[in-house]
């Protein structure tokens, strides 16, 4: 089966990637002004994967929404190519089949149904979902739903992918499987990726750079470059070493 790329592969060399420069984002709440982010910076070269780890409520989802243009910063700059979000919950539409869910990003951007399905079908195959293209989400496993969701965001065809704890709801085995899927997808379809995760190990195994955030108001307290060869394993000594560095930046005593 011919596996047509979604679009012409992006020329990621020389592209800007994305930069978040000294960004502050505040919310007006009933109990006054709440600063979610204060002086947050993050830089990703085109084609790079940056993992963002930080305590709950430190503004990680807010950061992704800023990158996707769903919010504006109060101070600072966000420069990013167009970004598609992949939410933590899969948010698949229960009335659509796996194939129609996967092609939804194309559909809502105006692609006719047949064309959108034809574009998504080979990807479903490649994601190991070929036998489930007509199955609705209620009858898919958690890992399958997550794959459909990832595919849907990928097929949006944006140069940047903003993944918000995409694998948090999965069991350890399925999550490990999903890491493999993600790596293969990105090898075939390079994107600049911002991956928010609670899991420091996941961050180091997957990413080129790990940005550690402070508790709210969130800002970057460390940016750790991960240059280890792939595939990486959580038990590799160099992975463990970087993990401990990230954990101590998070303030977790070992």
């Amino acid at each position, binding site marked *: 089966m011919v596996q047509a790329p979604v679009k012409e592969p992006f020329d990621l060399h020389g592209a800007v990637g994305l930069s978040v420069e000294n960004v502050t984002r505040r919310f007006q709440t009933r109990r006054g002004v709440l600063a979610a982010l204060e002086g947050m910076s993050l830089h990703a070269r085109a084609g790079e994967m940056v993992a963002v780890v930080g305590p709950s409520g430190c503004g990680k989802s807010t950061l992704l929404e800023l990158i996707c243009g769903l919010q504006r910063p109060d101070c600072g700059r966000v420069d990013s190519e167009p970004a598609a979000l992949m939410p933590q919950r899969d948010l698949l539409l229960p009335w659509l089949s796996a194939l129609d869910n996967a092609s939804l990003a194309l559909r*809502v951007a105006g692609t006719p149904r047949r064309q959108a399905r034809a574009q998504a079908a080979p990807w479903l195959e490649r994601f190991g979902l070929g036998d489930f293209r007509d199955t609705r989400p*209620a009858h898919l496993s958690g890992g*399958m739903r997550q794959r459909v969701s990832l595919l849907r965001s990928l097929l949006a065809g944006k140069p940047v992918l903003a993944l918000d704890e995409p694998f948090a709801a999965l069991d350890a085995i399925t999550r490990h499987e999903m890491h493999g899927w993600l790596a293969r997808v990105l090898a075939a379809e390079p994107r600049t990726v911002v991956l928010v995760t609670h899991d420091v190990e996941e961050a180091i195994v997957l990413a080129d750079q790990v940005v550690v955030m402070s508790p709210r108001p969130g800002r970057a307290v460390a940016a750790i470059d991960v240059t280890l060869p792939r595939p990486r394993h959580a038990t590799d000594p160099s992975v463990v070493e970087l993990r401990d560095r990230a954990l101590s930046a998070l303030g977790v005593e070992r």
Partner: protein
Amino acid sequence: MKRVAVRAIVLLALLAGAWEAYVDLGGADPLILPAPHAVAHALYIDRALLWRNFLVTAEEIVLGILVAATAAFALAVALHFSRRTLRPAVYPLLVASQTVPIPMVAPLFVLWLGFGILPKLVVIALVSFFSIVVTTLAGLAAVDPELIKLMRTFDASRARIFRHVELPAALPGLFTGAKIAVVVAVIGAVFAEQAGSNAGLGFVFQQAIAQLLTARAYAAVAILSAFAIALFALLSAAERLALPWAYETPGEHPR
């Protein structure tokens, strides 16, 4: 499904038996409360009259529901799109419309619209409109805001978000509203016919009461009840057929 029907019939038979015993043992004057056997007898001997008038009422109800569903759905969408302006202005009126006693306004519609089917449609639509608006609006509003954000990162226009996400999500609400509506629509039809009409089961009911033919009046009501149940069941079946996903409990999960 069959089992459910059997249970409903058994319960109905028990209730009818108790009712029959109550009247036969002198608990109530048959002119006020006819026994089930008398109602059954009236159903049989008046069958031509009842059938003729049933057709009139059934047409009013079905058309009335269609009018109500169309208008209510359109209004729900309008209120959804104008959450800030239209919705707060219209919602109180909508609630108030349900408190208006139909016998009070039905003669007014007859005065304006004559003795034909039109005033009946208006009354039926008026009583059944509300539930459809409320449930459809609830369906539209229940769409996860995260989902809307997600669609916006896919460059979805407002219209496409509505068409692909909100509209399908609102359909179960539309069906729920319509199921409530068919039941009140039957009451609406009776009131509308009593306000000015020379045909229909509501008319038959009124005449029969005036002539002390209580069993016939009860027979008319029995037919209306059966019709409401049939419409309700029909809508439920249509819903299962049209929206199978709304009934799916996460089944066996392949890995």
